[in-house]
């Protein structure tokens, strides 16, 4: 297999006057989990659809598993699995039937499918739900069934559009655990998310998108080191403007988001000293995370 699982070069897409993807380039290596991180409307789903060949870019080049897309997207899709943002399981069918029917779209015979379906249901922790109709499954179970469905053609690459949006924490952790197993098996994953924690936990590398542009790229740790690189103090309460002028000399950078001040402080103790006399303030000192990077880069808050 080649050294590149997926490559986008100068990809552009606009709808009317609205530019959705603006000269985007990135490369995903085989076996890597690559994240596309951005707020709603940053163009993440459009990129996912272009990668699948469902829409054509206005300009630029896309290669998926060595196949040019969209011209040979159909061949690329033979080796790609998809977990969409919104469940589109077949509600008329049971869990097992969903896998059977979907496998047939890949031209697989019933015998081939009967051989793999039990292990896929087991992987999705749905063994006991094999003959349950999809309508009876919980949100987390549906997501796991969608994941199992994406694996029916034993894909090399998984395209996941917000795989855990709308799930409760328990269900989300279960999905994350399953995805790590897939990565350990050598699958490549491209994941869109607006979830900082998800990106930080799963992605080897990611790019931060804003208005369809790649505004930063790297491993989560490298991005955090590069753009923040020091402790963060969150300050709640009090007048943010007044406080920020007070402590500005002692910090590297300050972001204001709603009622909260985010101070990037190489020496947090100095900031604490400045604020010691003030009553009614709440301070939270913590290591920097991706959310800080996003806030720093775009100057605005992500959805949590």
């Amino acid at each position, binding site marked *: 297999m080649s050294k590149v699982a997926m490559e986008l070069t100068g990809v552009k897409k606009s709808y009317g006057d609205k530019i959705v993807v603006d000269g985007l380039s990135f490369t995903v290596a085989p076996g890597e989990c690559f994240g596309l991180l951005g707020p709603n409307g940053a163009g993440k789903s459009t990129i996912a659809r272009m990668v*699948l*060949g*469902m*829409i*054509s870019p206005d300009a630029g080049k896309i290669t998926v598993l060595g196949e040019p897309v*969209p*011209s040979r*997207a*159909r*061949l690329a*899709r*033979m080796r*790609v*699995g*998809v977990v*969409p943002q*919104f469940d*589109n*399981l*077949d*509600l*008329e*069918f049971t869990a097992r*039937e969903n896998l059977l*029917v*979907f496998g*047939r*779209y*890949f*031209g697989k015979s019933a015998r081939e499918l009967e051989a793999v379906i039990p292990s896929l249901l087991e992987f999705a922790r749905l063994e006991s739900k094999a003959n349950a109709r999809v309508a009876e499954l919980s949100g987390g179970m549906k997501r796991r069934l969608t994941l199992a*469905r*994406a694996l029916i*053609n034993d894909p090399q690459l998984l395209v996941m559009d917000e795989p855990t949006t709308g799930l409760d924490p328990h269900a989300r952790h279960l999905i994350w655990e399953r995805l790590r197993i897939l990565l350990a098996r050598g699958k490549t994953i491209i994941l869109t998310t607006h979830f900082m924690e998800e990106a930080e936990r799963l992605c080897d590398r990611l790019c931060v998108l804003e208005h369809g542009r790649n505004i930063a790229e790297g491993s989560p740790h490298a991005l955090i080191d590069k753009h923040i690189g020091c402790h963060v103090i969150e300050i709640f309460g009090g007048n943010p403007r007044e406080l920020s002028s007070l402590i500005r000399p002692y910090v590297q950078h300050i972001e204001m988001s709603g009622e909260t001040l985010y101070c990037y402080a190489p020496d947090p103790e100095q900031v604490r000293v400045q604020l010691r006399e003030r009553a009614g303030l709440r301070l939270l000192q913590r290591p920097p995370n991706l959310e800080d990077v996003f806030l720093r880069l775009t100057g605005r808050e992500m959805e949590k």
Partner: protein
Amino acid sequence: MDEGFAAALPANAWNWLAVWRRNYLAWKKVALASILGNLADPMIYFFGLGSGLGIMVGRVEGTSYSAFLAAGMIAASAMTASTFETIYAAFARMRDRRIWEAILYTQLTLGDIVLGELAWAATRAFLAGTAITIVAAMLGYAAWPSVLYALPVIALTGLTFASLAMVVTALAPSYDYFVFYQTLVLTPMLFLSGAVFPINQLPGAFQQVTPFLPLAHSIDLIRPAMLGRPVVDVGVHIGALCIYAVVAFFLSSALLRRRLLR
């Protein structure tokens, strides 16, 4: 060829079968109710009009009114069954239930999906039309063995009307628009195609329209088969149905590509 348009065409000659089988599996779960539902409406018309009007009109084109009406009801039931499957069920699979979207993640193209849906709707039409043919035959309104020629025509009629309905499905913003197609296209076609009374009873101007109506071609093939009479212009009728089916298939594929793949 434009690579974008290739996505709207079938990728090969067999991919559509997976879509057909998906619909068949779903239908199997409700098969009995579905067949009875398809049968009820044309049977009510057949008995209602046949026995009620039949007493008043006497013989039509040298046969009893019920025997005349049988072919019309068979063709109409094929038309209705495949149209409803396409404008309601396929529309739901395309838009509300996102089933087409999931299929597009696989190696199937939009053209494969459209072809599979059309073949399935034609199958539903074949089942509905054949069921009525059997009832009509049991009542003595079908000539044996020429009635067998009606069966492939029923399937072709289903395919043609599925294809036409797919154009409507591709264009309709919501379910509310389908009623226009039913009331402004299908219902007039029923009366202009000689389903319930002979075409020569129509005012002259309307008779000019008849050669352009696919249902009229279908009835012109089914009625002689049912009555055991020789069919005239077989090639013209089959050709007309095929042209409608093929042109509407490509048109709907192009429209659906614009709707879904952008």
